[in-house]
C-alpha cells in the first residue's frame, strides 16, 4: 500500500514536469502587438460611427443612453419638396453630435434604438488618447469611422434571415 502511494506521488511530480517541458517545445501563443496585429472579430464593438445623412435629430439615442454620453444639437431647415409641386419640407439638420468615449460603456443601445440606421459599430480599437478630453469625438471624427464599418457578414446556417440587416 505504501509503495503505490509513493509511486503515485513520484508520478505526480514527474507528470507536472512533463507538462511544462511539453509546453516549452510548443510554439508560443503571444502576438507581438506593435509588429503583428490580431484582427478583431468583424462584429467587435470597437467604436461607434455616424452616418450623418440618415440622422434626423430625433434624440432617441441621447435619451436612451444609460451613461448620458451623447450630446446632440441641431436646427431646422427648409428643403425643396421631393416631388415638384409638393409643399416645402422642413428637415432637422445636425449641428453637433458628440459621443464622449470616456463615459461610453459600449453597450450598443444607441446603435440599436436608432430608427434611421445612422449609427453603426466598427471594430476599430486603436484610438486611445494622451488626454481624456480628446476622447470626446465630434461629428467629423464619427464620420471618419464610417469608413471602417465592415459590411454585415453572412449568418450561420439555420439562421432565419429577416429583411432588416
Amino acid at each position, binding site marked *: 500500500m505504501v509503495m503505490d502511494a509513493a509511486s*503515485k*506521488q513520484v*508520478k*505526480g*511530480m514527474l*507528470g*507536472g514536469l*512533463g*507538462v*511544462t517541458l511539453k*509546453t516549452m517545445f510548443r510554439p508560443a*501563443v503571444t502576438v507581438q502587438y506593435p509588429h503583428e496585429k490580431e484582427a*478583431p*472579430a*468583424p*462584429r*467587435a*464593438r470597437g467604436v461607434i460611427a455616424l452616418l450623418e445623412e440618415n440622422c434626423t435629430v430625433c434624440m432617441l439615442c441621447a435619451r*436612451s443612453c*444609460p451613461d448620458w454620453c451623447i450630446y446632440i444639437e441641431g436646427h431646422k431647415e427648409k428643403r425643396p419638396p421631393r416631388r415638384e409641386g409638393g409643399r416645402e419640407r422642413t428637415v432637422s439638420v445636425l449641428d453637433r453630435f458628440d459621443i464622449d468615449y470616456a463615459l461610453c*460603456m*459600449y*453597450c*450598443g*443601445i444607441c446603435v*440599436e*434604438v436608432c430608427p434611421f440606421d445612422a449609427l453603426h*459599430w466598427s471594430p476599430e480599437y486603436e484610438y486611445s488618447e494622451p488626454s481624456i478630453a480628446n476622447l470626446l469625438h465630434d461629428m467629423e471624427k464619427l464620420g471618419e469611422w464610417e469608413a471602417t464599418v465592415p459590411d454585415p*457578414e*453572412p*449568418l*450561420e*446556417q*439555420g*439562421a*432565419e434571415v*429577416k429583411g432588416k440587416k
Partner: protein
Amino acid sequence: MTLGTRPAGFDVDPSLYRHLADAQVNVELDTGDMILNLGPQHPATHGTLRLVVRLDGERVVASDVVIGYMHRGYEKLTEFRTYPQITTLINRIDWLSSFANEVPFIHAAEQLMGVEAPPRALYIRTVLTELSRIATFVLFLGEMGLQVGAITPAFYGFRDREYVLNAIEAATGGRFHPNFNRIGGILTDLPWGWIAETRESMRKILKSCDDFEDLVVANPIFQQRTRSIGIIPAELGAAYGVSGSNLRASGVDWDLRRDGKPYLAYNDLDWKVWTHPDGDSFARYWVRLQETRESARMVLQLLDNLPAGPVMAKVPRIIKVPEGEVWVNTENPLGEMGYYVVSKGATGPFRVKIRTASLSNVSIAPWLLRGVYVPDVITVLASLYFILGDIDK
C-alpha cells in the same frame, strides 16, 4: 448634514464619501496578537477585499472581512433605469461570467411579460452561458495554482480563456460585456463559421483540462497544501447560503440547472452533476475541473443539435412589463444568482433584489479561517473563488 432629506440648495459634502480606514472592526485588540491587514490591495484577494486577521504567531485567532470598496449601488441604479439599460449594467456584477448574469434577469422579465424566446435563441443562450462558465472556471484553475505558489498554471488559464473570449466576441461583439440578451430572444444570430471555430476551441479546452490534471491535481505538493484545508460541512454551508461548486464539493448533489425551475435548454442535454465528499479546498478545485470538462462537452452537444429558426420573439418596441413579482435564480459559475423583480407596469422595474453568490460564499470565511495558518488563509480564500463585483454589487 444628513443625506436622507433633500435640502433646497443641493451641495454635496465630498468628505462623506472618503473611505475611512478605521472601519468598525469586530476584532478585540489585546496585546498578545498581531493584527495583519490582508488587503484591500493584496495579490491574493481577487480585487478589493480586506481581511483583518488577528495572528498568534502564524496561526489565525480571529478574522473579519471588510467589504464595500467596490460597492456601486446596483439596486439603487436599477430603480432609475429601463429594462434594456439594466441588462447592460448587470453584466458588470460578476464580470468574469458576464453573459450568465443577464440570463436570470431577462428570464424574469420574460416570465412577467408572458413572452417566450424561440428554441434557437434558448440554445444559443445556453451555449454562451456555458462558454462564460468555462471562461470563469479555466481562470480559476490557473489562479488557484498561482495562489498556492505555482506560477505556470496561471498562464495556461489565461491562454485558454482567450479561446473562449474570442468565440464570445465573434458572436456578441463584446469580449467581457456581451450585452447580447434581449427580452424575447437575442440580438442577432451567430456569424458564419462560428460553430466550427467553437468546436475547435472546445477541443483545446478539453486537452488543457488534462494538462491541469497532471500539472496541479496530481501534484503531491498541491495535494498536501489543499487536502483537508478549509472543510465546509454540508449543512453549515447550506445555512450560510454557500452555493454552486463550493457546496457541491461538500457532497451536496444540488445544481439549479437540473434541480431548479427549468430554464434555457438544459433539459434536452444529458450531463452529470459532479460532487466530491471531502468539502476541502482540493475538492473545490477538483469539482470545478470536472465541471469545466462537463461544460465543454455540453457546448459540443448543443452545437451538434442547434435548431434552426428565428432568434427573436414578437416583442413591442417600447417594453412595458406588466405589474407583478417574480423570483428567478440560475446556476451561475460562482453559485446561485437570482433576481427578485418587482414591477409596477412601468418601462423600468420598481425594485430588483440581486442575490449574488459570492456574498454568501465569502460570509463563511471568518468561520472557516479559525485556527488556520497564514498560507492556508490564502488557499481557502482562493478555493472559495469569489469576484469582488459579485460581493459588493
